[in-house]
């Protein structure tokens, strides 16, 4: 009996010290970050999702497991912010490769706009920036869930003929006329680092400086 209690106590102490140690290490780590914030929260797991990548393969939580991933959300009808973000990631990737970094994350981008950004569209678009980039499309509500989990946000803006604009929140379906008229998307533009446990690890807000991002990625992945 006493032996059993003893074993339980020892195990609790080990787990606690591991936990404290872990927190302590990550706190020290986050102070050294230049371009990112630690977002890891063991109490908030990513929801189950199942999407489709640009080769029409299933893309779900398993695709984040046992590797590092840099994830962003885009839409291809964006001439400005999204191409800049993808360009920054291709620069970032080449910096990591040039430095001989031990870990070069997979680069994945999920569309906010699966109605227009089908897997076929994404394939041509995303691989233009780097052959290895993977575009992901799929069910709008699954994407919305993921957007929410990552703390991202978007809304669609439709302009009527008279120039008046209407905003549709991301959970609101678009009316038929809006699909015909076309729409813009206001969106957050963070880049996220997903850990090998399949959970959100860190996030890079704007502006994206590829050199500083590379420093942070090396620091984060080496101290994982």
């Amino acid at each position, binding site marked *: 009996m006493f032996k059993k209690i003893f074993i339980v106590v020892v195990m609790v102490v080990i787990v606690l010290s591991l936990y404290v140690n872990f927190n302590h290490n990550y706190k020290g780590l986050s102070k050294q970050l230049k371009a990112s914030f630690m977002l890891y929260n063991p109490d908030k797991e990513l929801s189950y999702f199942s999407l489709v990548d640009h080769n029409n393969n299933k893309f779900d939580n398993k695709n984040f497991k046992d590797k590092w991933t840099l994830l962003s959300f885009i839409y*291809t*009808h*964006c*001439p*400005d*912010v999204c*191409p*800049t973000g993808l*360009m920054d990631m291709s620069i970032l990737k080449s910096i990591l490769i040039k430095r001989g970094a031990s870990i070069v994350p997979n680069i994945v981008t999920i569309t906010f706009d699966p109605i*227009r950004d089908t897997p076929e*569209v994404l394939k*041509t*678009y*995303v691989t*233009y*920036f780097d052959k290895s980039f993977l575009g992901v499309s799929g069910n709008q509500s699954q994407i919305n869930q993921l957007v929410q989990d990552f703390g991202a*946000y*978007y*809304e669609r*803006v439709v*302009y009527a003929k008279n*120039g008046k*604009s209407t905003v549709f929140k991301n959970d609101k379906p678009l009316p038929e006329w809006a699909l015909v008229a*076309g729409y*813009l998307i*206001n*969106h*957050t*533009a963070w880049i996220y680092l997903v850990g090998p446990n399949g959970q959100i690890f860190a996030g890079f807000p*704007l502006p994206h400086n590829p050199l500083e991002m590379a420093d942070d990625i090396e620091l984060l992945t080496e101290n994982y």
Partner: protein
Amino acid sequence: MNKMISSLVLILLSLLVITQTGATNHDIDGITIHNPWVRLAPSNAPVLGVFMEIHNNSNHDIRLLSANASGYKRLELHKTEYKNGMMKMTKQGFMPILAHDKLILKPGSWHIMMISPESASNEGEFVMVELIFDNGSSKTLRVKVKKEI
């Protein structure tokens, strides 16, 4: 014969227009355009951004009212702003260029958006873009497609 002369005149005139617009710096109406460029994009990009510096050397504020280019469904004047944590790209009725000032069109800020291209643009190609200002003047620019400035 008359027909030939008139067509010759037309050709000469159009040559004149092209050579004039080929230069980035001309100052008949107080407006000069510097470093215009179209951002190279994936072959299936549904929209393309046009960027430049518009200088107003006159004593009056000038507005850019619209832009046109053949081979696109339409061109819109846009401004991207960072608001409430979001990048918002909003359609603008005009672009203001204040007297003795300039407006810089660049990624993440003011830009002209060319919507639904008929065909893909390749690096080094030129797009003819017409700008229409509220002082009655208009300019046609030969804008090069390139990766970045």
